Every structure is written in C-alpha cells, then in structure tokens.
C-alpha cells in the first residue's frame, strides 16, 4: 500500500492510495463515514423555550452541530463498561445553554462541562430570539456511530475514483479530443495530443475524447489498484485523524475476525 498526499488541510484531504484492492479502498471510505465514532447531542432537557422553533426542531438543530471529539477519553455509549449503556461521565458530556432575546443564539453559547469538548464551529446559528423570548436547556452528547445517525457521521463527501490511464497512439493531430474534453486537460502539440502527468488525475473517465476520435488513437483506461481519494471532515476530527481512525477501525475488525476464528 502506498499513500501519496496531494492536498491536506485541517478539514479536508486529497490523496492517491495505490497498490490496494477496490474492496480495501471502499472499506476505508465506509469506515470514515459510518464506523468512526464521534460525539453528538443525543437528548435535550428543555427548561424554557419561547422561541419560534418547536422543542423537537431545536433538538434536531443542536444534534447536527459537530463537536470536537476526544476518542481517547470517551467511549461509544453502547460499548461503555462503566455504565452498560445507561450514561456516565466516560461516555457522555453535558452542555448547557441559557439565552434571552433579542439576538441570535450561536453554537459558541453552549457551555460544556468538559473544556476539551467544544462545538467544532463557533458560529452555527441555533435560533434567533426576539425581545423577551427565552431559551434554557441542557444537552447531553454521546459517542455514537455514523451508521446509526448522520449526526455521528464524521466523514463528509468521502469518495474515490480509479487513477485514469490515457494512452495515445498513432494520433493524426486533428484536435477533436482536445476540443471535446470537459476538463480541458488534453493539450495539443505538433506531434499530437498529450495529457500531462499532473493533469491526468483531473480526468473524469467520461470517455468523450474516445468517442470523437475517428481513428481510435486515444484510449482511456484506469488503474484497478490505485485510487484518487477525496475526503472532508465535519470538524469532529482533523482530516488526518479521521483517516487514521478509519484505518484503525478496519484493523480492529480484522483482528476481531482472527480471534473468532481462533476459537474453532
């Protein structure tokens, strides 16, 4: 397995993953979306709500706020040994909010009982309060899995495509393919059509260039064991940590299978 990083920032990443099978690449993608646990608000005790939103709508908005997650301190609630899934300081964290209008309530107004655990974005509007409207609540966040609800989904827009391979042979330099390519990556030289090394990753494998070439000089193919991966994190983890956690999840599952097989 080889990883070649193209872009890496706090919230997003783009890399080429090569010498792996399609199922492994898809396993990583699915683990990033569904199997890396994060913290999200699961229930809300409302003490006062005179805002324009119903209690349920308010709870929905709160639950979708990504929360910076510390996977070392917290465990998924369903797997918590301390409380057996009832809720305890090892698997949940409480955030309180109290506000009075006029003004907009933002995610930064949530006061967490654990200073390390904070909303990932401070400026998510929760509700706009008019004069005299009040909001007092306590929200409890759990660790959970993306497969159970989107609010626990750490990976956003995770996807991959095979690395394109373009072969040009016996080209008569007519220029049709360069005009047709929607990505504009086919350059035109005297000797014929060319695609540069770095541009080839932009190819969407649409094969329009193949269709317009009358003499079948251009062939678009892809490498079955190399993938261009794009991923984004919702902020619960950095993009780097999310990818590492996803790989660890797969490793953990493989070890689990081995230990089950050992019992037979």
């Amino acid at each position, binding site marked *: 397995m080889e990883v070649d990083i193209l872009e890496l920032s706090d919230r997003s990443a783009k890399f080429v993953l090569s010498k792996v099978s399609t199922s492994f690449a898809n396993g990583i993608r699915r683990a990033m979306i569904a199997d890396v646990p994060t913290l999200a608000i699961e229930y809300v005790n409302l003490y006062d709500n005179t805002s324009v939103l119903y209690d349920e709508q308010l709870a929905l908005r709160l639950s979708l*706020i990504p929360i910076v997650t510390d996977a070392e301190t917290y465990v998924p609630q369903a797997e918590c040994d301390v409380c057996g899934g009832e809720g305890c300081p090892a698997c949940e964290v409480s955030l309180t909010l109290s506000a009075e209008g006029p003004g907009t309530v933002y995610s930064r107004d949530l006061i967490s009982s654990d200073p390390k655990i904070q909303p990932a974005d401070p400026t*998510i509007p929760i509700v706009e309060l*008019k004069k005299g409207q009040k909001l007092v609540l306590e929200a409890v966040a759990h660790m959970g899995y993306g497969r159970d609800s989107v609010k626990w*989904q750490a990976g956003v827009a995770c996807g991959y495509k095979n690395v394109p391979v373009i072969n040009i042979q016996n080209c008569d330099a007519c220029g049709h393919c360069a005009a047709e390519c929607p990505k504009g990556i086919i350059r035109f030289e005297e000797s014929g059509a060319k695609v540069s090394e770095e541009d080839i990753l932009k190819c969407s494998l649409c094969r329009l260039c193949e269709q317009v070439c009358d003499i079948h000089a251009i062939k678009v193919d892809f490498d079955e064991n190399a993938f261009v991966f794009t991923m984004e994190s919702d902020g619960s983890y950095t993009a780097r940590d999310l990818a590492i956690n996803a790989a660890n999840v797969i490793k953990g599952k493989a070890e689990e299978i081995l230990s089950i097989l050992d019992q037979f």
Partner: protein
Amino acid sequence: MIPVRCFSCGKVISNYWDEYKRRVGDGEDAAAVLDDLGITRYCCRRMILSHVELVDVLSPYQ
C-alpha cells in the same frame, strides 16, 4: 432558520449564512461569495442560494 448542514452531503453550511447575507446585501455577486467561502459543491450552494428566512414572519404569532 438556515438548516445546520447540507441535506445531501452533510457539510455544515449554516455558519456561513451571516457572512453570505451581509456580503450579498452589500452588492457582491452571490457566486463569487460562495466560491470565496469555500462552498464548492452545488448541493451545498443551493442550500444557501435557496434559503428564505422566516423567523421575522413567524415571530408575531406565538
């Protein structure tokens, strides 16, 4: 209120609403503002472009 996340991809987009509203109100081009804010996918762009703020309409009827 603007939905917290994009319905399709799940990216948080509500935190850009205030800035978008202010800058478009000041006369900037909506597409340029969205590009500048880093909202690249069209699923996320439509969330902001098609949003209608109803709080002021509803608030008198409590």
